[in-house]
């Protein structure tokens, strides 16, 4: 496959060639073309999380290299770009999860359980998560729920949530998140007082 044919090939065709001839120059060229097509969107996605050009570039390199190394595991049941999204998302979540806490005023949101490293905390976390999902579903409107999960599970910055949910208003998603937090706290307090 020459350069022209590579440029015209579909993602799936390039994946097949890259996996079949992994170590040959043709296979490597196919992988380079494939990942090159998506490099811009990977960089933009990484930048949304770290908000710094150099860090986003490092992270994007990491994502692309990781995709190249695990290309064998791509089973073709979804689009290649969706598979790449899952890699980019995991890398970005790891990058913002450790080592520093998230910097905004929504410290209460940090108490929403996250998947921890040890089994016990995972079990406890899942129970709490289910309870919170249930509480949120009963007490928050759709936008508040979605904003909350974009912040807590997708770890997106508040500005990005404002854009994604198309929230108007001066304080954007921050106001929505604060409202969600207040409602959730109230619901949690009621639940606790009902238990005691």
């Amino acid at each position, binding site marked *: 496959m020459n350069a022209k044919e590579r440029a015209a090939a579909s993602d799936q065709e390039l994946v097949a060639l890259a996996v079949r001839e992994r170590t040959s120059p043709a296979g490597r060229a196919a*992988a380079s073309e494939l990942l*090159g097509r998506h*490099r811009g969107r990977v*960089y933009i996605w990484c930048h949304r999380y770290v908000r710094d*050009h150099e860090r986003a570039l490092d992270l994007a390199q990491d994502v692309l290299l990781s995709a*190249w190394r695990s290309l064998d595991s791509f089973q073709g049941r979804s689009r290649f*770009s*969706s598979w790449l999204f899952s890699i980019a998302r995991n890398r970005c979540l790891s990058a913002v999860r450790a080592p520093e806490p998230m910097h905004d005023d929504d410290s209460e949101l940090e108490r929403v359980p996250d998947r921890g490293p040890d089994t016990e905390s995972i079990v406890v976390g899942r129970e709490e998560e289910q309870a919170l999902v249930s509480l949120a579903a009963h007490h928050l409107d759709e936008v508040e729920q*979605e904003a909350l999960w974009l912040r807590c599970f997708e770890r997106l910055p508040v500005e990005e949530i404002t854009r994604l949910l198309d929230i108007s208003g001066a304080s954007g998603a921050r106001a929505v998140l604060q409202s969600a937090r207040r409602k959730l706290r109230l619901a949690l307090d009621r639940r606790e007082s009902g238990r005691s």
Partner: protein
Amino acid sequence: MNAHLDPARLDELQAAPPEDPRRVHVRGCARCRALLRAHDDFLGDAPAPAGARLADAERALGAFLEREIANPRPAPAPARPSWLDRLWAPAVRPAWAVAVAVLVAGGALLLMRSGDPRPVVLRGAPPVAPGSELELLAPRIEGDAVTLRWRAAHEADAYVVRLFSVGLEEVGRVGPTAQTSILVRLSQAAPGARRGEPLLYRVVALTRGDEIGNSALGTIPPR
């Protein structure tokens, strides 16, 4: 269905009918809706966020992919022996013995025929020492673009420039070129190099792909 969606297979939902259990789940699960929204945003054409330098990033990532995947660096070649080592390599020693023997015999012949005016011609030439080190000329620097220059090496048909960090780690390579200068855009040629640190470079002269000479290390001041 209570399980959340698999982030790697979200696009399957597009083809799924409304009554598909996954679609039903998404309607009631804010977390999966958020994930789906993030996925669609990744695949969409949303503008780059403020502060992002997409064109720079695309160039740097393109160079990165080219270097790491399409044309990975070959394993480092074993160090070339010095010209003195090569002259005294075991395979060459018999030739030296013959040359010395011929010289001794020739000298003896000269002494015996000292009255004879005819010159004595020795067949073959002594081994030629490699040429002197490739000479670098001062580079021309205009921001990210640097023109590296050097004097032509005897018998060289191409040159390659290797770029190193101050820790002598190779961070890029440009060429080959048949000219005695090359324009290097540092952000493309050495995207992994640290800003604010000088870069080092060495010009390698080649003949039919074989390395025949090296320059000393030159310095490109910090950007």
